[in-house]
Structure formats: structure tokens, C-alpha cells
């Protein structure tokens, strides 16, 4: 009688799925830790310009965002095709920026305020006129540290 008897004919036992939840939970925690929630709902279309000399925005809590671009299709009936500014969740005018900066500043603690950064997320087809206006408003409200949000360009 052979020791290495073939177990032919017998079915394979089904693979245990008991550890599946653990695996999925591991994935879940990975994603929870490594990602950040989307800050706002975009009301404007933004296709960021490309650049190579990028620096990362390290501390998300210190960043306030200004979005500029054409309104999304469902808002075009009311707001038209011209580039608009979006602050938080709504459309805004250039004149609202100073108030926005002050509100953002008030929301931070005293020692964080000097390190605040304003990130400009501007569509690449926007005209510079509106961007210059925004920059002037930012200078007026002494929010001088800015970051022109852009994508990494792939060098050919």
C-alpha cells in the first residue's frame, strides 16, 4: 500500500471566506487614513494648468481655497459663461474675497495665522484680468502667501 495515496475523487474543500472582512477592513482603514475628504462641491469647471516646479501643500488645515472657472453646465443658465469665482460652496464676486479671507483667518488659531496659505485653483483658460483682481484683493487683506495650484507636467 502506497503512502502517497491519491485522494482522487474527493472534492476540494471550499476556501474559507471568514478572513475576507479583515482584508476589506484593512483596505478601508488604509483609504481612510491616506485620503482627505473633498472640501467643497465644485460649481465651476477647473482644469488646472501644468507646471514642473511644484511644492506641496503640507498642512491642509492652513489652506483656504479660491476657485475660478466657467460655471458648470447646470449653472450656466443663471450665471452665464464668463469665468466666476467660487468661495466655499457658492459663487462670489471679487469684493467678497476680503471678507472671505478675514473669515478664514478668524477660524484659525492665533499661532496658525501667519502660516496660512491661499490656494488659487484656477482654470487654465481663464483670463488674467480676474486673477489679477483676486491678487490685488489678497494683497489688500494681507494674505500674501499664495499657491497657484497646478498639475505635474510629464517631461517628454
Amino acid at each position, binding site marked *: 500500500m502506497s503512502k502517497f495515496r491519491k485522494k482522487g475523487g474527493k472534492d476540494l474543500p471550499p476556501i474559507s471566506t471568514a478572513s475576507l472582512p479583515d482584508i476589506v477592513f484593512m483596505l478601508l482603514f488604509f483609504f481612510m487614513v491616506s485620503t482627505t475628504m473633498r472640501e467643497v462641491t465644485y460649481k465651476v469647471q477647473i482644469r488646472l494648468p501644468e*507646471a514642473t516646479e511644484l511644492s506641496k501643500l503640507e498642512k491642509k488645515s492652513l489652506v483656504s481655497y479660491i476657485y475660478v472657472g466657467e460655471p458648470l453646465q447646470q449653472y450656466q443658465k443663471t450665471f452665464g459663461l464668463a469665468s466666476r469665482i467660487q468661495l466655499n460652496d457658492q459663487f462670489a464676486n471679487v469684493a467678497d474675497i476680503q471678507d472671505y479671507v478675514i473669515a478664514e483667518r478668524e477660524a484659525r488659531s492665533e499661532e496658525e495665522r501667519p502660516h496660512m496659505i491661499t490656494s488659487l485653483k484656477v482654470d487654465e483658460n481663464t483670463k488674467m484680468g480676474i486673477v489679477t483682481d483676486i491678487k490685488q484683493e489678497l494683497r489688500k487683506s494681507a494674505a500674501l502667501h499664495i499657491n497657484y495650484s497646478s498639475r505635474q507636467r510629464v517631461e517628454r
Partner: protein
Amino acid sequence: MARKTPEVPATSLADIAFMLLIFFLVTTTMDVDSGLERRLPQWIDPEELENDDRINERNVFVVLVNRNNDLLVEGEYANIDDLRERAKEFMANPYNEENLPEKEPKQVPYFGEVMVTKGVISLRNDMDTKYGTYIAVQNELVAAINELREELSKEQFGKSYEDLDKEQQEAVREIYPSKISEAEPKKVGGN
């Protein structure tokens, strides 16, 4: 005798976890926000602006971008691909040429007395310039200065600029300051 409570089935746990996972996948963004970091100048009242002391013409590297996204560098039409080299040459001025910016001696830690350029890059754009072009130009100018710093730190410390410690970086920055000035927006002429 009380009956034993049956075990809670754990088979659906995976489904619940999957649902959570998908929720997080959809609502989050993976990419780290990054961009060109710049500092704006202090706000100056337009009335006080008039008496600005003129900088010598050879010390200014003028870049103009018009409404058709064309570049005018130092008075002549230029291509954006050449801009980085031109800006580098301007800021470094390796042969002390007459038409490139002056230098002044300055005491810098680690380097001793070095000649530091007085050059300033001036960028001016039209109201109708495309933002994408503006960023491309800014990017080239920042890249020029970054490359100069990189070369200098390789030469002096044998290391990449990023690997230097804080004081060394500061010394390098002092020799190649990031002097990109953006003109005050002015209303000139009709359109």
C-alpha cells in the same frame, strides 16, 4: 431551560465593509494638492506708488505677455522654450557682461564675499492673457532660479539643494534671490 442564542452570522460583514470602502473611495481625493508657491508684495496705496526709485535698466529682465499669449522678452519676440535659459543667463551673468545686471559684493555665510546679482525679473501680463500661459511663464522663471541654486549647491557643497540644511539653503538663496516682480496692474491706453 433557556435556549442558546444562535450565533450572529458574519458573512454579511464583508458586504458592509465593502460598502464603507466604496463610500470612502468615491468621496476622497488621493492627489496631494501642489502648485507654484509665490509670495505677493505688500499692498501699497496707489498714491504712494508714484515716487518709486527707478532701477537701472540693465538690472531688469522684462517679460511681457500679450493678449494672444505671445512673449516679449527684453524687447524682442521670444519662445517660451528659450525663456528658462535666458533667465538663467540673466541672473547668473557668468562673464560680467555689460548688458546683463550689475553685481555687488556681499558677505554670505559658507561662501565668504561673493558677487551677488542686482537683477530683477519683471513680469507683466495683459488682462486677456490666458492663465495657463501665465503659469507656464512663471514656472519657467521659477525653474531658472531653482536650477541656478541647484548648480551652486552642487558646486559648493556637493549636494542637491534639497539635501542642504536650513542655513546652507539660506546662504544659497541669498546669492540667488527669487526676485520676480509683477508689475502693478495699470490701465494703459484704450482697450
